[in-house]
């Protein structure tokens, strides 16, 4: 059941670089599970989290196949968060910073995220019940 509360999270780390990405996704997941709306502002390298062309890979060192390796991709995790929001009847508003996207040529996303800018983050924070910024190290 929707709580009517909204949490805004700012994230900056690129995928596969820091445990911050995993923790951020876990916080978003927990908030959606509790029926809260979540705004995400993905800044700098974090705009790569939702790239559609991400592919799992085999592990030639261990000799395992793609199927055996079950390598996770952040775009699949984010897609599952959108599905969770839909199932819970709450809103996940994921904004990728447009300037960061353009710098990185990172504009081909899964369904769900939208393009925006720092003003979106400010507006979301003002309208939210809480805001958490997870900066890079």
């Amino acid at each position, binding site marked *: 059941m929707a709580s009517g*509360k909204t*949490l805004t999270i700012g994230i900056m780390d690129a995928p596969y670089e820091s*445990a*911050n990405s995993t*923790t951020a996704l*876990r*916080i978003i*997941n*927990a*908030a959606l*599970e*509790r029926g*809260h709306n979540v705004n995400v502002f993905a800044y700098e390298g974090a705009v790569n989290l939702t790239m559609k062309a991400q592919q799992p890979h085999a592990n030639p060192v261990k000799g395992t196949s793609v199927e055996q390796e079950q390598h996770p991709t952040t775009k699949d995790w984010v897609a599952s968060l959108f599905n969770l929001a839909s199932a819970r009847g709450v809103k996940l508003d994921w904004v990728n910073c447009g300037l960061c996207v353009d710098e990185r040529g990172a504009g081909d996303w899964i369904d769900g995220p939208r393009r925006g800018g720092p003003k979106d983050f400010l507006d979301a924070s003002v309208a939210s*019940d*809480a*805001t*958490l*910024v*997870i*900066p890079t*190290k």
Partner: protein
Amino acid sequence: MAKYLLIESRDPFDSSDSEYFCELVEGISNRGNEVILFLVQNAVFPLRSGSKHNDLIDWLLKNKVKVLADNFSLKERAIKRPLDGVEVVDMGRIVDLLLEPGTKAIWH
């Protein structure tokens, strides 16, 4: 009295400013504020019994800081039983704390 949720993600063995962050936590607490310190990712390493940074956590607990530790981070690092006085929580609890009115959240 303000409410603070301070989130430490760094290991003091890896990042010397982790100790400065703990000094900030203690300072906020000793000014009469309600302070919760949430340890996540490599910041849970000082909770392993025998770590030279056990004293840092004990010092915070003695200074009325409530110390929480992420269950997932503990499991990943094979820390089965953290120091006495530390509460093991899941991420849902952190979301609840974030959304408590008036709470100021700071990530380090």
